[in-house]
């Protein structure tokens, strides 16, 4: 089957979407962006094809053994991928151990690492057996980092193999693991995954069929912040603006205005009935209206980025934040906290400040027409969404606001659609 691939190389994450011949989404993949752009694109694409093959086998497996079997197979597959990553991490760490510690400590270090990885792998297996939610959204780097640090703390010896030594080894090696191609594709791990599931009749056959399906890439298009660094010829590169417009149109055909708030930039886009961009505005001189602003606030408050929104929603009396400058907002935040204002009220004000900035870009691009689609990482933040809804209603009246659960893939989807058009 012919497929079309879109890759969106963003500043924080890289996304890939695979379309089938009819232009329907077959698979999606995401990974954290890294200094090696080709590799980030490759990882996202591999993930998207894993997800594509799972969509091919879905119907067969569900028919043969029900939805739970499908879920279990997927979790088994993820476990196999994880084990490859752990094994590779261990190799890197063991390879750098001789340089990281004096000879007197080497045998203790080897023993500690042995135990450390045995426990980490056991935890993964345990989670699989325990039917815990399969697909943690975290990337290996994040999930592995916290598990490793926790176990390292438990087994470190302050007078011998210290926690610092272990963490140092990890920090050094995780970068290496992230910057080398690991084989995490479907064909290599599906068999092992099947072996972990008690095979209902038909499951293996469906998986086999999916594994051997011929998914030929007929065309690819790249987009995003790092698109110029993708190993694509120039004709296969499209600007994010165009891809976001077309992607949003594919998700919500009646959309006429799109707002995307990503990590580093904010875009306000107007599209016509075919998803073609008619006008757009982006933030230029200043990053205050971007996702990074919230990242900065989260750091200031010592919170996780995803915790900000829910806390802000608890606000009863949002504070007015005057500064739209990211750095000054930090100062204002500290000032307000020291005055005894409630954290949720300050946070609600900060969310509003980000959205206000974005609203002025939207106004510049031509305002908000019905329907309005909100995309980008910030669209996942409920407090930002609430602020947006309020401001849209205040300034433009009744508007239908679309937010897709897959909104992070909007740009990659648009790119894949361009690939399909070009082919």
């Amino acid at each position, binding site marked *: 089957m012919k497929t079309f691939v879109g890759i969106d190389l963003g500043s924080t994450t890289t996304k890939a979407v695979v379309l089938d011949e009819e232009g329907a989404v077959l698979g999606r993949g995401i990974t954290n962006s890294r200094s090696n752009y080709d590799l980030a694109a490759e990882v996202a694409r591999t993930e998207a094809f894993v997800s594509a093959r799972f969509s091919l086998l879905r119907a067969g497996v569900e028919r043969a053994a029900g939805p739970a079997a499908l879920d279990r197979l997927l979790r088994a597959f993820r476990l196999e991928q994880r084990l490859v990553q752990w094994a590779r991490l261990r190799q890197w760490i063991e390879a750098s151990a001789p340089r990281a510690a004096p000879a007197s400590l080497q045998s203790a270090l080897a023993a500690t690492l042995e135990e450390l990885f045995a426990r980490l792998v056991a935890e993964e297996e345990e989670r699989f057996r325990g039917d815990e939610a399969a697909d943690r959204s975290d990337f290996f780097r994040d999930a592995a980092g916290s598990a490793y640090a926790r176990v390292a703390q438990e087994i470190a010896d302050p007078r011998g193999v210290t926690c610092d030594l272990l963490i140092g080894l990890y920090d050094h090696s995780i970068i290496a693991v992230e910057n080398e191609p690991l084989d995490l594709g479907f064909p290599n791990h599906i068999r092992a995954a099947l072996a972990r599931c008690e095979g209902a009749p038909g499951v293996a056959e469906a998986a086999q069929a999916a594994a051997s399906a011929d998914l030929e890439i007929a065309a690819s298009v790249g987009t995003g912040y790092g698109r110029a660094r993708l190993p694509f010829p120039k004709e296969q590169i499209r600007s994010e603006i165009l891809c976001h417009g077309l992607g949003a149109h594919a998700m919500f055909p009646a959309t006429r205005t799109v707002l995307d708030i990503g990590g580093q930039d904010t875009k306000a886009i107007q599209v016509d009935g075919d998803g073609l961009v008619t*006008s757009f505005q982006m933030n230029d001189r200043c990053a205050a209206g971007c996702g990074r602003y919230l990242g900065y606030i989260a750091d200031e408050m010592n919170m996780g980025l995803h915790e900000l929104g829910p806390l802000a929603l608890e606000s009863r009396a949002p504070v007015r934040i005057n500064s739209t400058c990211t750095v000054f907002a930090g100062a204002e935040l500290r000032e307000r906290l020291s005055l005894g204002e409630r954290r949720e009220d300050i946070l609600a004000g900060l969310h509003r400040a980000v959205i206000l900035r974005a609203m002025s870009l939207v106004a510049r691009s031509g305002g908000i027409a019905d329907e309005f689609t909100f995309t980008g990482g910030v669209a996942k933040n409920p407090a930002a969404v609430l602020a947006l809804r309020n401001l849209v209603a205040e300034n433009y009246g009744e508007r239908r606001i679309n937010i897709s659960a897959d909104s992070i893939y909007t740009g990659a989807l648009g790119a894949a659609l361009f690939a399909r058009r070009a082919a």
Partner: protein
Amino acid sequence: MTEIAKDRSMEIQKEMLADHYRRLEDAPKSGEPVVYTFVPGNLNELVRSFDALPVFPEINALQSAMRGKSAGYIATAEKAGHSEDVCSYVKCDVGMARSGNVGPTGTRLPRPDLLLLSYTGCYTFMKWFELLREEYDCPVVFVQVPYQGDGSITPGHRAYVARQIRETVIPALERLTGKPYDEGRLRESLARSARAEEDLVAVFESAMRRPSPIDAYFGAVYYVGPIFSAFRGTEEGAEYYRTLREEVEERARQGLGPSTPSGVLTRQKYRLVVEGPPNWTHFRDFWKLFSDEGAVVVASTYSKVGGTYDFGFRHDMEDPLGTLADYCGGCYTNIDLPGRVRMLADYVERYSADGFVIHSVKSCNSFSAGQLTILREVEKRTGVPGAFFESDLVDPRYFSPANLKNRLESYLQMIEARRGAAAR
């Protein structure tokens, strides 16, 4: 062949400039009086008919920026107490004055004997000369120029400005130089201006051809240099424009595009109109963003800051003071918003442009105020989409190449996609 022809006008211009700056350097010794004045609405013919030498501070500022000197000058001015929000031309000039007043070609600039302000449409100009007066303790002459608030220069405006030239400017120049006003000389000079203006308009209008033999923004910056400054009305000036016109006509005959940082741009994918002054600190980089994409500029408003000749104005030797008055009030920034919208829409249509770009600079309110309204209006009138870029004149801190590139690429791809859709 063409390469040599192209070099000729460039070479001539370079020599003219070097010559002029040399004369300026010698002025303290030769005793030639020096008048500082600004580009918009300048009275160059009149000044030179008194054998005084003009200095244009904005031109020094932008030239300094093109030579990578502005960041240091601006820092010097900021240290001396000028805020970050002050027009960067001013700070660049003040910084240069405080760093030994060495001009862009490396020669020292003389102190002014007179500060002649003949366009008051920008308040910054007045404040700027106030600063220079402080610095140099020399006389200032001020011509109040009414804004074209109703879209034209009325007979009343004209008479008002002409009277100021007669009653204030001329006596001041007589006092300065010890020479009487010589109207015959002024008329000859105005006749030369008109000839050069005619040639310049022909150069601008060559951009209606496909391919356009010129770039009417980045390239035009060089074309308008002499006429907007010390050389309008001079023999060398008239000669320069004759040569330039021949050169451009020859290029057109050969079906060649303009020389750009990406080579001779004959395959032109996009024809654009540009509003707003260029960024000078990254002038070539900025130009290259366009030329790399095959975008050529076919008309611009910045090339009209010293006069909107293509809408008919020519200096008129029959009415010397009246024509100077019209010139003072006719510069681009003195035109009201509806007039600017009309002009841009007219360019988009007459030059069959695929799009128009507004380059909004942080420094200059004379240009920037109202530009978003202009954008929407021109889009509405022409049906052609506009783009909005932001940076600055000579403060390098406001030029973000990655953002500008991203925006320009997006914009051109949008034009391309719409073209494709229209073709289907």
